[in-house]
């Protein structure tokens, strides 16, 4: 057999006259390891193609597997029913119900074709969820791009958002949250990470395994075409080169309509107990779906190539075996259930075929029409026994300074030094590309379909009720790349802290963590060190907060000729509210309520939005994180919420305390806005207190009669607490409400007299100005028409 059509005329990293394995991205060392697993025999071309996709970074986790073993994965005591290794993590939530959730990247496909790349990313993660027997009930999209003023970025943003929306809207799963972040490090390599959450009855839990020799292997869903050939190996495992524009592998096109039918048919098959195992086909196509399910069950499979339904004539065996055509599933079906399975698929208008048989020999065997063997590979060699590389990690010799693009390096308290009006700084931050309202984006996503959305995108963590119960799920995604670029351990730990805090401030109990590790080329020691540190930060934070990591995804080689991305450990958290009626909102509720800061403000502006805007001192570092304090803070806020002491709660994150206060004000009273009259004590510098992003802080509001109880509760948790002032009524004279923050304390005036005289001693700004900045910031940054 020869490979007549190249797996992708483009995708081979090497030169055309190189041996086939290298052209498929398989190293000489890996080829030797493949021979080992074939009992010393050389693979034929089809087998080599199958190994090349399965031993790609994307499918095999060959660089990251040893690291991932260090993560805390929880136990039945945490409610964990399925952990890493399954299509999605599953956690029981009582009432016989469970949630399945996971986050996954589609970075490289989205860089090539943003709309289809993002769309198929949504499709892929949804399949992971319903393959487990869960109905997808929510999607969150975490997106990262380069400079929003850049034409290429704008094209990517437009396309990715269209892709996420176009797919999610059509399949009828609400997109309830996410992130949109701009940073120059993503210019050549955008990040598209999508998280999905599903709800299932525990009885319906279905695993991706292929038990029972003699069972049918059934393929249903779309037909198999040439699209996405070699996508896994090529797209996810190779650094983007300059010349990629001309050498593009085939693009996968998503069909959300077919996915919707696939969801309904799959869930119907599962509920009727018609399948013994179910696996979606994603990266690695049929090769991956069959070898993984067989390996998990300790069985083998014999696949009859000729009966696989195709979209095009003349496809080569390797094309059929590694095609990444979307919207396909493999089911393992007992022969007596086949007719029922076929009936369900046909009712939903989906092509369905028996493509093979489960065997007991442990091999994945591919045969042609005449029964001649085209390939025979131990299933384990393609999956659990795939090669693992011990990569070299090395910290950079010199610590990096925080990236502050185009900003002048000035003292970290540059704000008072330069006599800047803190109100103007706040307005600039709120109107900035990263902190302004994401409304222009999330309004393109159906966030309400299924009639469960209690809080959609835009106001902190998303809240989705569980119909028929008083419960609700609370979800957030976060990643701190800016600190991660300076200290990858800290960046990862901060990401976990923020994502869990976002969930906890609603009063919910975080249940578990999923993560998408977006890093650079693991063969580069510094990049591998970043990954190592990131995993350590993730593990440390999850242990400290007592949370299991139930799944995730690793995306490496996120580099372009302009450099590697900032390390980006995207963290997805799902929490549970036992009674949705007790949820706490971030918005201020009523005039007269007290505004209270819980937690300690610590120095360090590196990695903050303020530093990006105003510059920072060369010696300044990022703020520190005390995971034990974070744990106490989250325990405090949950208890305060449970006891009904809170009118509102919002955490301090991007843009610092001032931005948090502005959000509470703008969203106050059903988005009509509520002002406040506050005093903030400044310890070292106004910039740190107003705009610093030191973690583990929450702004709450409460009716005056609950303040004493809150103070006591904070003391009991060993947390500092400061009453900042009160929420004010809207002026009756029709003038706009204002946010007024007076600064006092030693740092407010500074030590030198002349310095003190130039310090603005108050932040006073009207909500109309703030709202204008906040609402229009993103459209202005992207050059979108405002409406």
């Amino acid at each position: 057999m020869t490979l007549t059509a190249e797996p992708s005329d483009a995708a081979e990293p090497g030169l055309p006259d190189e041996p086939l394995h290298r052209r498929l991205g398989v190293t000489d060392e890996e080829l030797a390891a493949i021979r080992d697993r074939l009992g010393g025999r050389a693979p034929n071309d089809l087998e080599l193609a199958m190994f090349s996709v399965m031993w790609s970074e994307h499918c095999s986790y060959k660089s990251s597997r040893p690291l991932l073993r260090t993560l805390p994965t929880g136990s039945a005591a945490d409610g964990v029913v399925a952990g890493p290794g399954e299509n999605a993590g599953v956690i029981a939530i009582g009432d016989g119900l469970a949630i399945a959730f996971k986050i996954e990247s589609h970075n490289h496909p989205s860089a090539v074709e943003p709309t289809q790349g993002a769309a198929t990313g949504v499709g892929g993660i949804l399949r992971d969820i319903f393959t487990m027997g869960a109905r997808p009930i929510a999607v969150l999209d975490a997106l990262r791009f380069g400079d929003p003023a850049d034409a290429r970025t704008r094209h990517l943003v437009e396309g990715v958002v269209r892709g996420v929306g176009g797919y999610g809207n059509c399949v009828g799963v609400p997109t309830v949250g996410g992130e949109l972040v701009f940073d120059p490090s993503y210019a050549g390599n955008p990040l598209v990470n999508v998280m999905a959450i599903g709800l299932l009855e525990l009885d319906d839990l279905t695993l991706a395994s292929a038990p029972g020799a003699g069972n049918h292997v059934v393929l249903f869903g779309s037909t198999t075409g040439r699209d996405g050939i070699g996508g896994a190996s090529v797209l996810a495992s190779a650094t983007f080169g300059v010349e990629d524009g001309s050498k593009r592998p085939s693009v996968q096109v998503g069909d959300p309509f077919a996915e919707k039918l696939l969801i309904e048919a799959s869930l119907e098959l599962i509920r009727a107990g018609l399948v013994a195992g179910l696996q979606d086909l994603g990266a690695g196509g049929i090769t991956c779906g069959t070898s993984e399910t067989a390996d998990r069950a300790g069985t083998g499979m014999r696949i009859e190539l000729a009966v696989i339904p195709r979209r095009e004539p003349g496809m080569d065996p390797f094309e059929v075996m590694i095609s990444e055509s979307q919207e396909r599933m493999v089911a393992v079906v007992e022969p007596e259930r086949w007719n029922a399975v076929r009936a369900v698929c046909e009712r939903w208008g989906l092509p369905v075929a028996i493509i093979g048989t489960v065997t007991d020999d442990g091999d994945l065997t591919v045969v042609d029409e005449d029964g001649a063997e085209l390939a025979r590979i131990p299933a384990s060699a393609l999956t659990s026994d795939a090669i693992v590389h011990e990569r070299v990690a090395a910290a950079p010799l010199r610590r990096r300074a925080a990236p502050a693009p185009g900003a002048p390096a000035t003292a970290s308290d540059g704000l008072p030094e330069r006599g800047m009006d803190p109100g103007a700084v706040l307005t600039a931050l709120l109107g900035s590309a990263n902190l302004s309202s994401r409304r222009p984006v999330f309004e393109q996503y159906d966030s309400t379909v299924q009639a469960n959305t209690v809080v959609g995108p835009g106001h902190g963590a998303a809240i989705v009720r569980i119909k028929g119960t008083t419960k609700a799920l609370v979800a957030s995604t976060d990643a701190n790349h800016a600190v991660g670029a300076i200290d990858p351990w800290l960046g990862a730990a901060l990401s976990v802290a923020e994502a869990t805090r976002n969930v906890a401030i609603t009063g919910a109990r975080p249940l578990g963590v999923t993560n998408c590790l977006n890093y650079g080329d693991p063969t580069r020691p510094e990049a591998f060190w970043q990954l190592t540190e990131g995993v350590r930060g993730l593990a440390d934070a999850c242990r400290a907060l007592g949370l299991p990591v139930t799944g995730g995804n690793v995306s490496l080689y996120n580099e372009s000729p302009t450099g590697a991305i900032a390390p980006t450990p995207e963290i997805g958290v799902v929490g549970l509210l036992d009674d949705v009626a007790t949820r706490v909102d971030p918005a201020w509720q009523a005039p007269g309520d007290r505004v209270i800061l819980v937690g300690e403000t610590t120095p360090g502006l590196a990695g903050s939005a303020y530093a990006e805007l105003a510059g920072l001192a060369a010696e300044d570092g990022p703020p520190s994180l005390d995971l034990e304090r974070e744990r106490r803070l989250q325990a405090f806020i949950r208890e305060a919420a449970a006891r009904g002491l809170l009118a509102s709660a919002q955490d301090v994150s991007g843009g610092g305390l001032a931005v948090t206060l502005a959000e509470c004000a703008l969203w106050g009273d059903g988005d009509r806005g509520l002002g406040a009259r506050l005093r903030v004590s400044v310890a070292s510098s106004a910039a740190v207190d107003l705009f610093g992003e030191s973690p583990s802080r929450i702004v709450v509001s409460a009716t005056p009669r609950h303040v004493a109880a809150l103070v006591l509760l904070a003391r009991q948790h060993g947390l500092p607490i400061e009453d900042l002032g009160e929420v004010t009524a809207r002026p009756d004279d029709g003038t706009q409400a204002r946010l007024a923050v007076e600064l006092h304390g030693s740092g407010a005036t500074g030590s030198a007299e002349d310095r003190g005289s130039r310090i603005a001693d108050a932040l006073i700004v009207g909500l109309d100005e703030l709202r204008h900045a906040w609402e229009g910031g993103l459209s202005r940054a992207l050059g979108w028409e405002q409406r």
Partner: protein
Amino acid sequence: MATRFAVNVRPKDGILDPQGRAVEGSLGHLGIEGVSAVRVGRRVELTVEAADEPAARAVVERLASELLSNPLIEAYDVEVLGAASSLESSSAGAAPPAAESASGTPA
């Protein structure tokens, strides 16, 4: 000189065409038989004011490859629909009959 063109954009060979597939799937309900290989694309008609036809065609080609089609997943061809006074063409409803047609695939 004003010329009216049409740019026909269609999914490339081998690229999934969900719309075409959906139309085929609905033919049964319409009681229509014998229809196959349905491909759904876009057709953009436009008037170009340029010195001569080659100059006008160059403009259309650029538009077609950079804006109107996505070369990764779509192919296009350009048709000349005929001379058009820009005024006339701006209200052109039914297209004038195709005068000439040529195929092109983006580089």
